[in-house]
């Protein structure tokens, strides 16, 4: 399994779990899932570039 596929899988699982929590409407849950998924991918992308700059 490649790093990208694994990262996508973890991000999807975490986003879905975060969206389930709390008393929210279905639309808010959808927004929460998108927000968490996008945040996770942005964090990984930024972290990847930081590691690239540090290690080359």
């Amino acid at each position, binding site marked *: 399994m490649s790093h990208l596929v694994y990262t996508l899988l973890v991000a999807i699982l975490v986003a*879905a779990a975060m969206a389930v929590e709390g008393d929210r409407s279905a639309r808010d849950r959808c927004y929460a899932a998108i927000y968490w998924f996008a945040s996770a991918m942005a964090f990984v992308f930024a972290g990847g570039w930081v590691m690239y700059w540090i290690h080359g």
Partner: protein
Amino acid sequence: MKSAPPRAALLLAGWLLPGGGYLVLRRYGRFAVSLALVAAASLAGLFLRGGNLWPETAELQGLDGVAVLLARAGAVAKAAAGGPYLLARAAGYAQGYLGGCVHEYGTAMLVLAGLLNLMAVAGAWELHPVERRL
């Protein structure tokens, strides 16, 4: 008006069956999603040959205190998955600490399954009727 189920039932059901706390509270949708998430993470972890055994003392030789603590915390987190963890053990799946370090993708996925189940237990705890009246 029905009486609220005891909180111990939420904890026990939530550990034995992922999302079981929601099932006790009759939140069937959340139960189904939580069960699917924990089951998916556990299955992925098992297929990726993640470590699921408690680290032996010999395996931790040479590690500093923080690394030992993290290794044991990881084992506790994997056990928090509850049902899938017990099923895997009952089915004979056994991967030691060192094997788990080699197959780190699977080990991380098994830890994630446990943490997702802890989130489900905490979510059900928050929805407990007695808690919500406060």
